[in-house]
């Protein structure tokens, strides 16, 4: 999009008018400037963030040497991976249930499954805090079992998103494909495996990406469910930001931003931009 078009602007080419371009450009700067500044200053050779004092990677080394931070990152990735797998299975199964069957109280079940999306994070966090306290959930298990409580909480708020995405994909499923497969001799299970799963695959990829980032992103719910031995990355960063701004946070954040970008690009390679956009 060259700033000034060569040909005159046709009526519907709103985005080709100059003021619209400046506006979109301004919004993009608004969205990206903070992140870019953060990434640049993670290489700044200064304790304070504001003045550029030369290039260094020492804060990356420091962040890598910070055992608590690394442990938090490992915890976060482990939880995200576990929660994603479980959410995919649970979410897909729930979507198939709601799409395929007619059963009593269906409306209520449908509504309840999507409730975790709507209930504010803080309330879910509080609920899990009280729940795990009430059932005396063991807190002294060995790694990775000590992450169980957080993982359970994450699955609960991730899988409804998978259900939502898979369900909208299922709506476009042509039942005749299923009938054709059966006509050619497939059993229920073979139909599910050979016809239905390939059809919902894009939604599963999108759902996996969504779960993974939601889990990795979550601070509030984790904040209420994590104990001293089960700090996740956002919780760790939160305490670092809260108590002292250290350039290590910049370095660690930059790494996480890059991870996000890489994940997004992998998803794009697999799906294309449009498919990902449509999952929202």
């Amino acid at each position, binding site marked *: 999009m060259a700033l000034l078009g060569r040909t005159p602007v046709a009526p519907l080419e709103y985005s080709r008018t100059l003021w619209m371009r400046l506006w979109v450009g301004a919004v993009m700067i608004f*969205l990206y400037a903070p992140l870019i500044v953060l990434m640049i200053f993670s290489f700044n050779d200064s304790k304070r963030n504001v003045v550029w004092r030369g290039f260094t990677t020492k804060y990356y080394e420091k962040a890598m040497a910070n055992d608590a931070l690394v442990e938090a990152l490992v915890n976060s990735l482990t939880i995200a991976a576990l929660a994603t797998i479980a959410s995919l299975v649970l979410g897909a*199964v729930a979507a198939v249930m709601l799409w*395929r069957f007619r059963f009593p109280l269906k409306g209520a079940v449908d509504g309840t499954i999507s409730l975790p999306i709507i209930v504010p994070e*803080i309330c879910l966090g509080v609920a899990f805090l009280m*729940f795990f306290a009430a059932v005396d959930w063991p807190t002294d298990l060995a790694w990775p079992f000590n992450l169980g409580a957080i993982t359970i909480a994450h699955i609960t708020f991730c899988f409804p998103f998978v259900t939502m995405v898979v369900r909208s994909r299922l709506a476009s499923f042509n039942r005749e494909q299923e009938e054709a497969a059966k006509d050619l001799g497939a059993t229920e299970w073979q139909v599910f495996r050979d016809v239905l799963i390939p059809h919902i695959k894009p939604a599963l990829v999108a759902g996996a990406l969504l779960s993974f980032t939601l889990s990795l992103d979550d601070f*509030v719910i984790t904040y209420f469910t994590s104990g001293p031995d089960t700090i996740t990355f*956002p919780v760790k960063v939160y305490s670092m930001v809260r108590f002292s701004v250290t350039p290590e946070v910049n370095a660690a954040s930059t790494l996480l931003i890059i991870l996000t970008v890489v994940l997004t690009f992998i998803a794009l390679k697999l799906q294309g931009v449009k498919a990902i956009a449509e999952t929202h």
Partner: protein
Amino acid sequence: MAEQDWKASKTSFAAVSVPTLLWVVIFFIVPMAIVWLYSFGENRGLTEIAISGTLDNYKRATEWLYLTIFGKSFAVAALVTLICLIVGFSVAMAITFASEKWRPWLLLGIMLPFWTNLLIRTYALMMLLGTQGFANKGLGALWEGTSWIKTLVGLQPLPTWEPVQLLFNNFAVVFGLVYVHLPFMVLPLYAALDRLDRSLIEASLDLGAGHFRTIMRIVVPLAAPGIVAGVMITLIPALGAYLTPDLMGGTDSQMIANVIERQFKKANDWPFGAALSFLLIYAMFALIAIQSMRRKVPEVH
């Protein structure tokens, strides 16, 4: 598409329904029920809570202090939603009508922040807005520039630039929430606008309407489902926002989620926190109920 009656194939139905229902009941309904029960409880001793059926917690929640916090949370969330709607709508329009080549990249540009960690984004914004941050430096440079121009034309220069406090106040909370939630608004708006038949817009122009009237009379009514979705998707999390007011707000920028958090992490008053949580949930339900009452826009295919 005909749905199958569950009785017709009980094994298949059991295979898909039992795991889902078990999970939802044990790890969602039970925890929520505990909160609900505790909201009618009272503290007995340091760790012991008795569910006595008292309404004291709710009574306390209606005290002036908490009412103002509720009101303020609503006001902040509404303001954030409004700003996001205005900014997001124009951006969504720009994306919808961008060329085939640019549209995916603009969409990606909106989505990447959406995928990026919320805490990191908030932290990045704080860095920029601090008294020593770039936002202040930029404003300072503008100030100096104006001052210089004034001296140039023979007027008194402006007084020396004092860094403004952009952080730890209500402005910062609104700014931060807009920053965080803007992508949430743009994506559903884009989805709705993209579905819109362009010839409807062209027909309106063809019949003599200008662009502004076309947007107000044709685009907005037809994109209403997307607008409502965008508003809800922004308003609900903004109302329950914890992190942004906590990190970017000042002492007077508490929102309801911060009060709830305090009951659990500091004040150790679980029953009262539970009551506040449920009041917040009821508020969400009310919003959703209002939303679902709106008139359905007929669609023609």
